């Protein structure tokens, strides 16, 4: 006669009590059930972990895409601004002061320093004086900008002031040097040297200061 009861509901095995090796451990139904539930729980937890991981990776990918898009948008905006500037002439707009300073700087740089120096040096050599000082008043060079802007016609140009100092052997030599510098040269002072010195051109005893206005010689 077959029993209708499942094995796990049948009374425990008394025959196992005759086992000289000790009772065999038989996992009960509830033990297997607990194991099954545990495995299902672990599987479910692992599945949830996988889902969370996938969502996190997707969110990170979205964030990376948004950051790239933002960078690209910035680059595009910058490129568009540059393109707009290029279309508008790409010349920086200067105000009046900036323009004046730029013009003054261009004037300084455009002054014919080489010819001026050559002329001064040649005049001193021919006159037999020893050139001691050479200076150019930049303010006068800058101030000449306004007059040059307003001036028109022949003779207009930067009214620079050139200051020269030299030693000479006598008054004749000094006047000859003044004449060699041109009609716009004027003697400002003439003083004897506190310590005269001798040079190939003679005994220098005078110190002469000369100014000359006007642009390039």
């Amino acid at each position, binding site marked *: 006669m077959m029993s209708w009861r499942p094995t796990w509901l049948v009374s425990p095995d008394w*025959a*196992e009590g*005759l086992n*000289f*090796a000790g009772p*065999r451990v038989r996992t009960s139904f509830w033990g297997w059930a607990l194991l099954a539930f545990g495995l299902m729980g672990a599987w479910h937890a692992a599945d949830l972990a996988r889902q969370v991981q996938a969502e996190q990776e997707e969110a990170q990918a979205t964030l990376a895409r948004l950051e790239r898009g933002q960078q690209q948008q910035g680059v595009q905006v910058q490129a568009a601004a540059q393109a707009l500037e290029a279309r508008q002439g790409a010349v920086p707009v200067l105000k009046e002061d900036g323009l004046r300073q730029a013009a003054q700087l261009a004037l300084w740089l455009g002054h014919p320093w080489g010819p001026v120096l050559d002329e001064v040096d040649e005049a001193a050599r021919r006159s037999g004086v020893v050139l001691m000082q050479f200076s150019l008043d930049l303010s006068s060079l800058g101030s000449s900008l306004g007059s040059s802007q307003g001036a028109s016609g022949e003779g207009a140009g930067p009214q620079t002031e050139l200051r020269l100092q030299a030693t000479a052997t006598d008054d004749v030599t000094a006047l000859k040097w003044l004449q060699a510098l041109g009609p716009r040269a004027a003697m400002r002072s003439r003083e004897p040297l506190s310590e005269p010195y001798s040079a190939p051109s003679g005994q220098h005893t005078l110190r002469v200061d000369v100014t000359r206005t006007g642009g390039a010689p």
Partner: protein
Amino acid sequence: MTSDVDTPSRQPAWLQRLLGRWQVRSAVLMAPAHAPGDAEAIDAGVQALSQWAQAHPGASLELGLSSRWLLCAATPDATTAEQALQLAVQQWVHYLGLDEASLQADWVLQPVVSPRVRLVCAAPRALLDGLHEAAAEQGVRLRAVLPWWAFGLQAVLGDATEAADSPDATDVTDAASVGPLSWCWDEPGWRTCVQAVNTARAAGALASTPAPVAVSGWVVDRIWMSAPDEAAAPTESVMSLTPVASLPAAPERVGSQAASWLLEGDAVAGLLNRRPA
């Protein structure tokens, strides 16, 4: 009898070892006729297991013991394990002439005290120790060492109890359901019989009560072992019973005329576990 153990396998060695660990094999250790606790017979039994273990290193084995190795006694009056042991020892001293001290020293006593079964079985300590040592040498795991008929007895006793509890068996005047039930298990040259009585029905029948009494089930009343042709049974009819199970003769060892006392195969399968419901 063929054994699946000797069947050549194409499985790799590591897989065979793994399957050997997982798959539990069943075998019955037969025994030659011998006096209880005979050392020569015990050596033969241990040698049989040792040879099997060498051929199956690392295996898991459930081993049934032939009744020739055992002393078994029913103690229906015992209520505790200690009482069952005391009553069993008294029987063996009285009927077999064994010494009580040697029983305690040289035998391992295994009592069972359950509502329907109160009995004690004893196995030689030297046999059990030898079996465990032989198995351990080859890494064989002995999951069970028990009488080969134990689960068979549990099954037939359960069937008898269920039949008695069924509504069709309420007639206490039925002589078949009142009288004792007997079952036998045969092995070559040896028979183990168990007798059970339904005490509640017997009491009801003797008292001639008109109403059925409460059923308490069948209780093991007596166990005895003998050669099949001996007249040691309480009733002559017991010897004509069809055995519940029979073990075949021990096969001859390969290349030898001596018998291999370890019986394995289909005849043993299912004997050492609970019968499926």
